[in-house]
């Protein structure tokens, strides 16, 4: 259907632009987005932003308190840990490791989950039943349990914990893709494409996938916050990243031994995880309500 406008200068914002406008209206969501940007900058430019090497030890400056306390020193903004490593440097690198690995995990889970989900959503009959229920059953297995099993088979390490979390995240994407595909498949425009002779692959790539991006973005942010929490939790439990790798959970776990002497070793990495997750959640929430507003509009 040819579309023409009466007035040449009338501006039709694209769906994304409309979402962005709705998003901008919420100050909280914007604040979250700014905070998240800061974390992303930390993650991308960690080596440029940090004053020390990440595992650089300073024997003479063990457990230096943060700079804002009475006996802190400005040379160590967040103080140092029990090996004299600069905590600011470690936390920045920690954001890089934790956020980066969480991001990779989510992208991987999304790729696998969406393909499986689309496949399951287009199937019919017994095969569909199996393809539907196996992931649902898997979804019920707690992440920690999957991680424990992966660690038992492959040993500890950041990469192995990433595999475990990917595995745990996949079913969610499968679930959502599948139900979305299934609802879409019943819609008229799909029937129209089918009548036009589109095969399943064409149906999926040209008709369904564009409608899925929003769901994927929203699910992606949810998955990202879960992934950050899980990666740091596994690091904290010594099942994931191993010290001295600067993963926020592992840094926190290192700090536990000196909790009473140097509480900032527990407080600051924990705070970093908290704000990281908070900013992701706020952005995700903002995106969701912006999308909802657009759809309802």
């Amino acid at each position: 259907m040819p579309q023409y406008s009466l007035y040449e200068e009338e501006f039709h914002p694209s769906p994304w632009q409309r979402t962005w406008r709705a998003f901008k209206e919420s100050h909280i969501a914007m604040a979250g987005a700014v905070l998240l940007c800061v974390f992303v900058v930390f993650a991308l430019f960690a080596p440029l932003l940090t004053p020390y090497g990440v595992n650089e030890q300073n024997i003479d400056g063990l457990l230096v308190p943060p700079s804002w306390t009475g006996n802190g020193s400005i040379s160590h903004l967040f103080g140092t840990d029990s090996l004299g490593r600069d905590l600011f440097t470690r936390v920045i690198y920690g954001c890089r490791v934790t956020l980066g690995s969480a991001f990779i995990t989510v992208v991987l889970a999304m790729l696998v989950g969406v393909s499986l989900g689309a496949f399951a959503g287009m199937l019919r009959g017994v095969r569909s039943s199996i393809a539907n229920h196996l992931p649902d059953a898997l979804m019920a297995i707690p992440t920690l349990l999957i991680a424990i099993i992966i660690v038992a088979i492959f040993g500890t390490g950041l990469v192995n914990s990433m595999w475990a979390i990917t595995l745990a995240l996949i079913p969610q994407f499968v679930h959502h893709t599948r139900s979305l595909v299934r609802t879409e498949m019943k819609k008229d425009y799909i029937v129209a494409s089918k009548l036009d002779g589109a095969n399943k692959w064409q149906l999926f790539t040209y008709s369904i996938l564009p409608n899925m991006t929003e769901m994927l973005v929203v699910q992606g942010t949810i998955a990202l916050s879960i992934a950050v929490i899980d990666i740091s939790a596994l690091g904290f439990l010594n099942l994931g990243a191993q010290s001295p790798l600067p993963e926020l959970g592992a840094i926190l776990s290192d700090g536990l031994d000196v909790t009473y002497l140097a509480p900032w070793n527990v407080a600051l990495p924990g705070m970093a995880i908290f704000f990281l997750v908070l900013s992701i959640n706020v952005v995700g929430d903002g995106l969701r309500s912006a999308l909802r507003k657009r759809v309802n509009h």
Partner: protein
Amino acid sequence: MMSSVIKRVAVCAGTALLVVSCAKQNKQPFYNTGVVYCSESNPVTFNPQLDTSSTTSDATSHQLYDRLLDFDPDSGRIVPSLASSWLVSEDGLTYAFQLRRDVAFHTTDFFTPTRTFNANDVIFSIDRWRLESHPFHNVSSGSYPYFESLGLADNIADVTRVNGYRVEITLKRRDSSFLANLATDFAVILSEEYAAQLFEQGNPSQIDQLPVGTGPYRFDSFRKDSYIKYLHHEDYWRALEGDVADKSLEDESLEESSDGILASDRDLSAEENVANGEDLNQATVEKAPSASVKQLIFDITPRSSLRLAKLMTGECDATAFPAQTELEVIRNREDLTLAEKPGLNIGFWAFNTQRPPFDNPNVRRALAFAIDKNTLLEAVYFDSASRAKSLLPAASWAYQNDADDTAYNPVLARSLLAEAGIEPGFSMTIWAMPVERAYNPNAIKMAELIQRYLREVGVEANIVTYDWKTFRRHLQEGLHDSVLIGWSADNGDPDNFYRPLLSCGAIPSGTNRAMWCDEDYDRLINEALKTEDLDKRRAIYHQVNRLMYERLPLVPIAHAYRYQAYRNEVKGMTINPFGGVRFGGVEKVL
């Protein structure tokens, strides 16, 4: 209206949470009926003969068992325990022990004793590790590391029963540290009756899992990684007998000593008994548990910070091994007590005396004079150690308070170096061990400090470190110029320091890090083992100290303290420098 209902629900839920969270653990008298000790790990077994780890002996040795003899924690002398007195023959080869009567074994769910402690139990307990043919020798692991490392089994010719309450042990060679070995945590006395019963039931290994002993507490239950529960032993012999009873037993032993071999040893034994008499005045080393303490619980908490946390909240009454970094926190708390005592250990700086120029005593002395030990103590041990003058810590009975010590004197150091022909700019290596030990919590830091001192006297030091396994292998090969390392002893006998650290025989076994072999030194320490007279032995060890000061194969640096942290309401805790913790006599008072 609706909102007010919901509000009320919310408020109610909130208050309920608050109320619950404020349900503070009241300090009811019930909490005083048990002592909870936060220990660091699981015991490997409940029989300390089988394992030398301090975790095992802490958990079992002084709680469940008694030994024939004990160390006095203050003087380090050997005092009677299950043996009320003992006699040593003139040739030093035969030891006769008079045993205490009416000592009850534990009555538990799994064993009801029909008789009290007697000679059979002693013979069983010693023969178990001594004789490979013994039916119980191969039960459990079949290895008795403490006794094996000392070659004690080979040195015992025989253990015989003279009568029900007298046992004789015959040695092949003279060994004046023998009694000290019988007083260590590992030489516990098991119940022969219990063993016989288990053997009949075909379940001998139960003896090391469900233990029976004569100690102040009896075994109740054990859950791995969570707790060990002991109950108060009602018939504990120290609770039933007072010092008076000890005296009467002492008299009895003198009367009985008129038979056989013992009579012929009278001359020397009389002298020995005088010493015993002294000791008997201090016989209350281990005390009976206070009647108010019905339970002793080991709460197994591997993480040191969690142990401290539990101590703060009162979930533990005492804790094992507070970390060095936590000591200050404990000192600052008003409700906690930190007890400290010099431990049986030594941290030192050893020179490889087989590599020139360190084969020259003057070079070694020069280097020793170049460093300031007090600074090292402050910076590395945070003052949690005492300055070492010789090998022996103050806890040992042979400690020499006025031993010669090298003082910080860079001028003397420089002139000694010049005399020895060492040019300024001479370079050497300092090996710093990569692990943290009580006797040296941070060897690398210490090496850096020493490096700075040596630079002042014109010696350039390079610090070398490897992973612990490689480090020890290279040390064994003698690749080092000097090394910062140390030693922890198992018992209070001075021989446990002098022999493994510097004797010729200890070079191949890998404990003599100075690679030092000195005829005079070896002659002296062997001589010291040939006499039972403590004063004579002490005099010999003082000569050894003098010799060491002159030839200086190693620079003694520090004896680290042993720490024990407990809550103020716990009374009667003492640090036992010669082994594991003791809970007999501990009670809780508010």
